[in-house]
């Protein structure tokens, strides 16, 4: 299977690998997937007072496409408002990385991960 240059670049030089303090009120954590299915993504966002995502980190167990999808989405959400990040569609990720059809689920997982992280952040900050 030949992968796109962008995908290989994200796989070889993943952006924003790491973890944020999951206990912090500013941090939302999304953990999606299952080891038995071959992919698990942990995606975290740190949201500033203005509602803008200041930082994002990820760790992923999965194939190259899963790693690249999560790396890409951390790049995209930084600097966006929570609502903007919430509206990112998996198809945008799939198109950008030129994912082959059998790998589309990796982009779905990345979308699920950011949505889960945002939900966690909102849940922590309910007024």
């Amino acid at each position, binding site marked *: *299977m030949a*992968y796109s240059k962008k995908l*290989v670049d994200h*796989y*070889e030089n*993943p952006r924003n*690998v790491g*973890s944020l303090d999951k206990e912090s009120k500013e941090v939302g954590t999304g*953990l*999606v*997937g*299952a*080891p*038995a*299915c*071959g*992919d*698990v*993504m*942990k995606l975290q966002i740190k949201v500033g007072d203005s509602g803008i995502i200041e930082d994002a980190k990820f*760790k*992923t*167990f*999965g*194939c*190259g496409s*899963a*790693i690249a999808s999560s790396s890409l989405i951390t790049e995209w959400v930084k600097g966006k408002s929570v609502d903007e990040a919430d509206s990112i569609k998996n198809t945008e990720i799939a198109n950008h990385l030129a994912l082959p059809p*059998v790998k589309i*689920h990796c982009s779905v*997982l990345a979308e699920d991960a950011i949505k889960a992280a945002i939900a966690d952040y909102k849940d922590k900050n309910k007024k």
Partner: protein
Amino acid sequence: MIKNIYFDYQATTPVDPRVIKKMIPYFGEIYGNPHSRNHPFGWEAEEAVEVARENVAEIIKANPKEIIFTSGATESNNLAIKGLADFYGDKKNHIITCVTEHKCVLESCRFLSEKKDFDVTYLPVKSDGLIDLEVLKKSITPKTLLVSIMGVHNEIGVIQPLSEIGKICRENDVFFHTDCAQAVGKIDLDVNNMNIDLMSISGHKIYGPKGVGALYVRRKPRVRIAAMMSGGGQERGMRSGTLSPALCVGLGEACKIYSGEMNQESKKLEKLRTLMLDGIRSKCDEIYLNGSEVERVPGNLNLSFAYIEGESLMMGIKNLAVSSGSACTSASLEPSYVLKALGVEEELAHTSLRIGLGRFTSEEDVNEAVEKIVNEVNRLRALSPLWEMAQEGVDLTKINWAAH
């Protein structure tokens, strides 16, 4: 330019240069039809085929007359199982095989159960990949025609107890077929001592050409199989079609080389395997070997690299040609049915790679592979949320994962 290194000797092997040399005349100057009985062109080709047949027979201690040339192990397995079923099916209609057999054996059995009213028992395997002989004994009924169990496993390299299986079959008057595509040249084979009635052999797994194989069919006591193709009745009526002398010579020469060199090659591969496994394990924890540690051929390492997915590891070591037991390289997204049958948890099945060592693998190749694999395993574990959680002491089995 990065050099690609081949570590997939169970998928196929390069043709040994000595084999190629023997084959070449039969593509050009010696072109007769080996079945032409009336002139020297035919005789010359026939003689080459018969010498090849002797070489194939020799390595499994059979009589040359018991060797049928085919297009490969897939055809041999089909011919053995379906041919036997066709010939004896009106008397006995039960087949015993094993869940980890090659697809061509499983599919042949499925065909017989769906289309020909056969009952098929699929034996489970123990966690080491071997069948339980007591379960085999209990599965035999008066209706059992055939037991088909492979010699050496293509994915996990384990060696089934052929002598014991053969003995059980003979005592119960059941035919014993074994797919030895991966066993020839790797373990000692003796069709008489092992009570083997039918054996499938492949050319391209033993440094011979692709497109040729053989089926051993016992003559005393005689085993009958119905042909699958109608034609001129070549190969004692069991496999019609003009033989390719070049391919037969290639298979024969590959067998001949192994008859002389098997022991020294096995010793070399054992050394390389130890170098590889110890090298990886000395720098990475939680590397699991799938299949029996003891009853396995030296050229196969099937390893699970816990907490990192197999395909992502393959991507990182892309100049090393290995094979993945994980799902993500195939369209099905299902992890290997073989590892599942061993009871390897799906989590670990997703992290497995098959590393094949062979005749042309060097110590430098192994050292380079160890370095690359260790680096990549450590890099990907630093990326893995599961590794992080495991290091923090989180029990991954207690988490309520969302299957997708």
